[in-house]
């Protein structure tokens, strides 16, 4: 499992590769918070290469969305597969996040 971060225009794009779970969510959180501290405002997390997400992974996403909003920033999610979509629906987190089907749509939506 690993996270790769790159800038695309003024948007910070994070790819979550593998699982986003209790064992590694802190790493994702810290990476995004570091960028936020550097002044970045627009964040896209891409799940096209993600396996499964557990409740603490979801918790980190909730926490990040709050922190980003507090700084006047925006967070978008993209490329949830059907299983991950179900997870967001079960927990009603699909109502909290702005979720795009593709990376392109997510990038355009800022």
């Amino acid at each position, binding site marked *: 499992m690993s996270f790769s971060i790159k800038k695309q225009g003024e948007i910070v794009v994070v790819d979550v590769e593998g699982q986003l779970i209790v064992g590694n969510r802190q790493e994702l959180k810290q990476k995004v918070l570091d960028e936020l501290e550097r002044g970045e405002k627009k964040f896209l997390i891409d799940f096209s290469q993600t396996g499964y997400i557990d409740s603490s992974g979801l918790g980190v996403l909730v926490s990040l969305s709050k922190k980003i909003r507090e700084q006047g920033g925006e967070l978008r999610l993209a490329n949830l597969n059907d299983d991950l979509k*179900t997870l967001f629906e079960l*927990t009603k987190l699909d109502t*909290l996040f702005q979720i795009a089907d593709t990376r392109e749509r997510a990038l355009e939506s800022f």
Partner: protein
Amino acid sequence: MRSVLSTDPDPPFKRLRVALEVEIPSDVRCIERVVELVARQCQELEYNPRQIALNVPVALTEALSNAILRGNHEDPDKNVQVRAEVDREQLIMEVADEGDGFDLDMCIVDPAIGDNVLREDGRGLFLMRRLMDRIERYSNHRNIVRMVMRRHD
């Protein structure tokens, strides 16, 4: 000239049952490998792809992280034991920790209602309940959470 032996498919097994017993230290980094092991057995028994990719990994991860963090408080002297039994009918998973246990029936917060959606925690047992057909807790020297999921095609 090439020939494949038989064109008939091989006759199916009459019965297949796999039982796993794993013991891990109280370390969340062990979770993923345990999940992989159990998911692979479900694959062997041709469980539905969604059960293999979603229900089993998420529910088991929740049970394991609760056992490691809530039950054993990451105490390096305490271990977590996992038992999984898979056949063509159902998957049974049991996760045992060395903690004091808890009252499962009292933990019925719905994280999908109202402001709970904004909370960072409290989705573990909820997801286990939604992703498994049955979950229960009992004590037998250890604190044991038992999850049952029927196989779907």
